[in-house]
């Protein structure tokens, strides 16, 4: 019986395929002290998340000092990519996510993933 059980365990281990994690979660936040010399005084791209109501989808995404108002995370990814094309901006331009306290965590994670999908190399959270 024990043998059968052990064989079944090996079978499941071999046949089961794990879903790959979405995006890449950075293990460490960017640190100033780690940058060489004095950092450039660039202004970050600021993404703001605001909860409008109690429903799951009742939130809004904003981009400080940019006209576009993405309606979802896919549109956010596209908008950030376009910003990277502007003079003075690129993937190294820091992106700061500022979420209100009542914003759902999965929206914050969605925003993070959208930034990574757009190719942002420096993503951080800011205080609302």
């Amino acid at each position, binding site marked *: 019986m024990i043998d059968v059980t052990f064989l079944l365990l090996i079978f499941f281990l071999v046949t089961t395929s794990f879903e790959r994690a979405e995006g890449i979660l950075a293990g460490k936040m960017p640190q100033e002290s780690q940058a060489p010399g*004095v*950092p*450039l*005084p*660039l*202004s970050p791209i600021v993404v703001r998340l605001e909860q409008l109501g109690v429903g799951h989808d009742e939130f809004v995404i904003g981009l400080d*000092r940019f006209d576009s108002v993405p309606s979802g995370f896919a549109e956010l990814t596209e908008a950030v990519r376009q910003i990277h094309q*502007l*003079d*003075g*901006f*690129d993937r190294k*331009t820091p992106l700061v996510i500022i979420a209100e306290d009542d914003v759902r965590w999965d929206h914050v994670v969605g925003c993070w993933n959208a930034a990574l999908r757009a190719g942002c190399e420096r993503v951080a959270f800011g205080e609302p």
Partner: protein
Amino acid sequence: MQRTRSITASGIAGFITRGVKWRFLGKRRVSGPANMTKWYPALFSAILCAAAVASTLQVGEADRTVSAERSTPAEESRLDVKVFREALKARGLTELLELHLKDYPPPGIVAKRLMARDMKLAEYADLSRPLEERMAALAEANAILEELLEEAGDDLRRFEWRFTLAHSILYDQAEPMFTNILYRGGSKADHRELLELTSRAVNVLTRLTEELTAEYARVEGLSVAEFEKLERRKYIEGIDLLGPRANYLLAWARFYDTLPRDHADPTRASNLHRIMRYFAENKALLDTPHRFSRIQVQALVLAGMTKRRLNDHVAARSCFERAVRIADRITDPAQRSNVQWAVTLARIERVRNDRDDGRFDAACDGLADFRWAYVQEHGENLGLRVVAGLLERSVYRAWSDAAHKAGVVEEAERYREKSWKALARTAELEADDRDEVYATLYEAMGPDADPAELDPFEQCALIAGLLFEAGLVHDAQADDTSNRLLDRAVRIGEHFLASATDSEASLVPEVLYNVAVAEYRRGHIVDAVKRFLEVGRGHRDYENALSAATYAVQLAAELYGDPALRGRPEIQRLYLSALRVIVERYLGTESSRYWRFYYAHLLDEMEQYDRAAAEYALVPAGHDHYLESMFMRVRCLALGLHAQADQNPDDLLEIRRRADDLSAVQREFVSRASGELIQLQIGDSARLSMLRTWVARAKVMAAEILVLPQINRPERALEYLAEFETATSAADEAMLAARVWRVRLVAYERLGRLDDAAKAIPAFVAADPAGAGPTLQALFTTLAGRVESLRAAGDQRGARQKANVVLLLAEQIVAWVDRFGSDIAGPDRSTGTVQLAEANLYVGRCQRARELFEPLADQAADAGLLDEPLGRRVLVGYAESLYQLGEWASALPMFNKLATRLQPADPIRWRSLLRDLQCRTALDHQPEDILRVIRQQRFLYPDLGGSVLAGEFEKLERENQRRADTG
């Protein structure tokens, strides 16, 4: 500021008493019919056959007898001593007479007594003496006569002496009392004193009639020779005349004796019946035509009064009507005059008789007749008007009582109201009338009257009477008595005010006024002011309203002037209310004109400068403080303008309008003051000095307005102050120098006369070392702001020019902080040092700036103060000094910190960002990075911190583009 006032508080007490002062509280006489003694010469001349008075012959004879007995001094042969003495008496030279009598005393005890009595009578006749003294002399004279009667009881002259004594007691001593009682009701004292006197008079006359009866019998028994001897000396004739005279006088004495007695007193009834018996036995007195008897009218009045008191109203009415009718038929003016008192009394008694008989309508008709008659005979006579008022009141009271008894309550109330209003109407005509009426009522009531039993007008009289009496006893020993009376007056007044009905409203202001007076005398000044204010504010038609308002403001001013009370808000409010009442409700009065200045001054003290200035403008030209009020107006306008400029600095229209007003008033003041200064060149040095000070201060105030940014006429301000040092006294110069130098400093700076400004700063600090700090700081802030503005605008040259003055100011501020910083409010050491370092930067002294900034930057970093405004100024200043000195690597992290931490709206952020990139350029950092930052910032913030900085960024961009292109 202490000022003189035209009416002092000490003057108030005396002035106030006028409200309740009476001319004759005590022994008053009714004008017109008062002299009731006029009848008796007529009696002598008519009924009693008008014989010469024997007594004078008897006295003369006695004198002659005595004079023969003594040795006559030599000079007596040339001097008639009797004539000399009579002349001295007639001229009131009693002291000379006394001296004469010491040298030449009359011989014998009788002559001495008679002479002593004459002396006392001369004192009594001397009208220059006080009434009390005269009455005391009269009492002594009568006492001497009584002693003489005891000592010389067998003297033939005793009958005449006794008659004279009784007559004097009745018509000299008792007259004021029975007049009061007969006409006005009289006081308790009147009743008490009259009873004592009339009892004496009745006794004297009774004894006289008894002695005369005995003497008649004795004379009847004399031999013919003895009788003829007496007859030749006219003795028989004398005692024959004296009998009827004594009986007639006794009848009147008995009548007067009934007046103070209670109705239940058996003596009263006995007296009245004896009088009627007398008339029954002497019917001729009532029936003999007046033209023959000369006393018919008087006898009828006496009979009528007696019958009224015996409740025989019909007979009494008949007597009075006959008396009046007979008197009306008298054509001889002298005779008419002789009976006038009796006719007046008959009319009064007729009204009383109808009243007592319940014939109220007839009483009212009689009253009208009385009023008409006395006006015809005496004109508007105050005494008789008061009597008429009292009479009317008594009629309506009786009417009210009758209605009440009949159960007609409403009518009873109506007559009750009419009764007190009758007197109130009498009192309304003039203040003196009211005093007279009050005095009469108060005398009758006494101080202990129960107000619950008094009508409203009597309550007013009681309050006034208590006040008056308190005034009489107001001295150190009698304070308790006085205070008790005043407290009672206040209590009665307060109760009256609390319960006054609409019909009593006309009495309210007077009660308020008298309560205020009582409170004042009691020492309750605040309460007094409040009551006076109520009168002044709410009862302008009341005759003493202006006085009340004036007292209120005087007393309130005294309270406000008391250092112990001055700070209390309620005292200030009280004073303000009092001032407002007098100036607003009594426009055009002298008081209003006088107190206007103080009203303005109080508003000034309360920092209501606009209102104060408006009130100062209304102070009339003749006022003692007119020039001062002009000066104070200038001051208030200036303070108001400064306040306006602080609160609404952008309201240029209003600020300039105010400045124009101020300028006009200031010019007018200086012109007038200068005119007076010329006149005062000789004498009154205090006034001269004060005027000079005002003129100097007014000029400085005007100059200060001219350097306000909104007015900005610095050249005119300098003109105003051009002769300040030469035209101003040393004391004024010391007082005003700091303000003058401040104005000059600002004016020089505005005019770009920076050298003059630089010179002015030390003078300014020297003028006011301790107070200079805040002003220097304010100037520094203004100038440094302008330097920054010039630099921001790219005008480096202009900025550097002003920066020199800024540096000088900064150095003075630091020096001031070193000297006074810990003691006086002003800039602190850190701020001063930062300012000094910044000023060094402005003028390009970067090393000095770095030295000053460095320790501050370390402290700021240690204390984490970089988020504070001063901390940021230190960091940016330090970084700037390093940058200017070429220490870019050291400066870069500081600029970078400021550029990345500060918000884009902060100008320091943009300058720091520029400096950050300039440092990187100087340090040969990657030009692409620098270009990327510039372009990113231009995308995000197209104006790049303003046109000047945007230009700098463009310049930097071109330089780095060139570097990038050349590799």
